[in-house]
């Protein structure tokens, strides 16, 4: 098991460490069920949520996770200070360093921003990537894996991976940091990844993707019989950029609807990282069905982020 100082990519964690994180998250989820939902573990530590891009969901999830561990939380919203305008990433990082941040949770519109922050020497604290451009979103992958493991193995999930689990990730793979992080972590945990998308929303050269690529969701459902169908959000800016002709056509061919839902195998899960475009990539029946883990994913997000903050902030600092 290799410990890490920062969590920049789902590829940073080896199998043992990934399972360790998920196991710690199990412990954390117990805390979230208690009456007093707080642990003193990170008392006196400062966690900064550095968000260059709006994401209320991810921010409050990290905020709650840090607060439940008794850390002091500062939300630093730097939206608008983008490309070469206003305050640079470097200035912001140095400011946070001067304030003594022990961990920086960064969300940025630029792919690689978390890597730059971690390797620039601007900042000593632990860096957690909370989504960088179209690159990665490793805590999302961890909470998705946690959710799958919990549904598949129940109370016996501790210590287990996701060996042999077949996951069909459907939608805008090209621009999805959720898809990239899930691919890496699911591979690490032994799952089998299938990407389903219109050809325009798959990478032109997927040579390094250890996944099977499909254009037809129907074929994947009927032939591959996935254990998990994960629907990705279609960003509004794709709709006007000729990636597909219309929302209607997208929903008809790549959306999860009640027709497709009933053809899934009995135990199959329906996942979505949220927020959902109901009626586009997923219809209401699918989103609200008992197979759907959407709300569990949200709850598990807090546990997983607690586990990540705890693990990065306890133990020897490099």
């Amino acid at each position, binding site marked *: 098991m290799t410990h890490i100082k920062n969590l920049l990519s789902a590829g940073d964690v080896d199998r043992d460490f990934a399972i360790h994180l998920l196991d710690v998250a199990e412990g954390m989820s117990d805390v979230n069920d208690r009456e007093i939902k707080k642990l003193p573990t990170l008392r006196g530590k400062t966690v900064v949520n550095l968000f260059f891009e709006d994401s209320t969901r991810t921010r409050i999830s990290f905020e709650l996770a840090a607060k439940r561990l008794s850390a002091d939380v500062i939300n630093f919203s730097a939206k608008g200070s983008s490309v*070469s305008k206003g305050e*640079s990433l470097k200035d912001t990082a140095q400011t946070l360093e001067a304030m003594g941040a022990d961990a920086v949770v960064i969300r940025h*519109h630029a*792919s690689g921003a978390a890597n730059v922050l971690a*390797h620039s020497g601007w900042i000593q604290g632990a860096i957690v990537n909370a989504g960088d451009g179209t690159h990665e979103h490793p805590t999302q992958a961890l909470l998705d894996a946690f959710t799958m493991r919990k549904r598949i193995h129940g109370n016996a999930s501790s210590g287990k991976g996701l060996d042999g689990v077949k996951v069909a990730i459907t939608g805008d793979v090209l621009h999805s940091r959720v898809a990239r992080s899930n691919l890496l972590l699911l591979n690490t945990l032994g799952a089998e990844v299938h990407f389903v998308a219109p050809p325009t929303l798959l990478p032109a050269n*997927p*040579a*390094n993707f250890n996944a099977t690529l499909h254009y037809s969701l129907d074929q994947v459902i009927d032939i591959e019989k996935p254990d998990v169908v994960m629907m990705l959000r279609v960003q509004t800016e794709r709709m006007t950029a000729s990636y597909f002709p219309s929302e209607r056509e997208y929903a008809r061919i790549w959306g999860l609807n009640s027709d497709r839902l009933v053809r899934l195998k009995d135990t199959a899960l329906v996942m979505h990282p949220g927020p959902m475009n109901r009626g586009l990539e997923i219809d209401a029946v699918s989103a609200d069905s008992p197979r759907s883990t959407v709300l569990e994913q949200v709850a598990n997000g807090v546990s997983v982020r607690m586990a990540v903050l705890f693990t990065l902030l306890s133990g020897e600092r490099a």
Partner: protein
Amino acid sequence: MSANYVLKNATLADGSIADIAITGEKITAIGKSLEGSEVIDCSGLIALPGFVDLHTHLREPGFEQSETVLTGTQAAALGGFTAVHAMANTSPVADTAGVVEQVSSLGREAGYADVYPIGAVTVGLEGKQMAELGAMANSKAKVRVFSDDGKCVHDPLIMRRALEYVKAFDGVIAQHAQEPRLTEGAQMNEGAVSAELGLTGWPAVAEESIIARDVLLAEHVDSRIHVCHLSTAGSVEIVRWAKARGIKVTAEVTPHHLLLTDELVRSYDAVYKVNPPLRTQADVLALREALIDGTIDIIATDHAPHPIEAKDCEWPAAAFGMLGLETAAAIAQQVLIESGASSWERLAQVLSYNPAAIAGDQDSGQPIAVGAYANIALIDPKAVVVVSSESASKSNNSPYVGMTLPGRVKHTVYRGYFTVRDGNLAKVGKH
């Protein structure tokens, strides 16, 4: 009249050993046992015609925090260059006779290399209206190379007109081949690595489609076309085809595209961010082969200085471009000589004769011969140098810092004047 200098026992590109006598600005004798007031032992050094860069960004006027004509030509001298062609994307843009004459005179004042301004093809590099190419050609700067480099002349009609128009004064259009719609927001080569890194891809076809169009346009109007910084194997194939067909196309490759690949982008270190982007190893090999077999005519540096803050940031916010003047000869040596694939003669062609011929330079890039200007780069081919972060350039965005490269420019003689001696830059330029 006794010679000012004698370069004793220098090895010429063809392997022969001779003394070179320099008097005033010219080479006055080549032979054995020549005498002069100062004799410089050049045994073991390769004497090559001073290098000519067809693609340099000197940044002045407008971006003097990155580079000036003075600092840029000093870096050039350290790299063995005696002439540079200064790209037009300054501020104001070099799209009028006034600006090109200013750059030209700044070059003369600096005195480290001949500075040939390149004129913009279109007003403000905007691709809409042809700049006054004739005025620039007829100015004191005698512009012959025109380019919107940094931007592509993407409108096919404007490109056709420009190709035709410059025939009037034997000019040439140097095209930055980049289809703008296919590269909107593009950050790096589109391929397996961009798919992993989540950076917007820059497909090879965005370069190749423009080159294919332009060689056909050049054929149609029977004009010359020069293709800047080829970066893909496909571009090589198109140029090879065009040359076989008799189209008057010349092509350049940068040192970085001969050496570096998109794997380096994994670090997200913006020093590797460049336009066109670093490509794959297969592209690098195709470019090397094309340079050796003559499909590619020249190495040009695309020396592109940027201040620290333009690189010390997240990748998409960073500027495109990297330094190249001081390391170009070493990379040429690595690719042509150390590989065993080619010769010093070829190196002289791609770094000196050919760029001068494409640009129509009369004074630079001539063979080392009696009567020619004494523009000579003396290389110690046995030296092994770890590239340092120190540079004569005002900027430090070199991707080679820390790398070990072969060869060292020991002396640079520019019009009979040592701009570099024993690896040290002259404190003042030639006046």
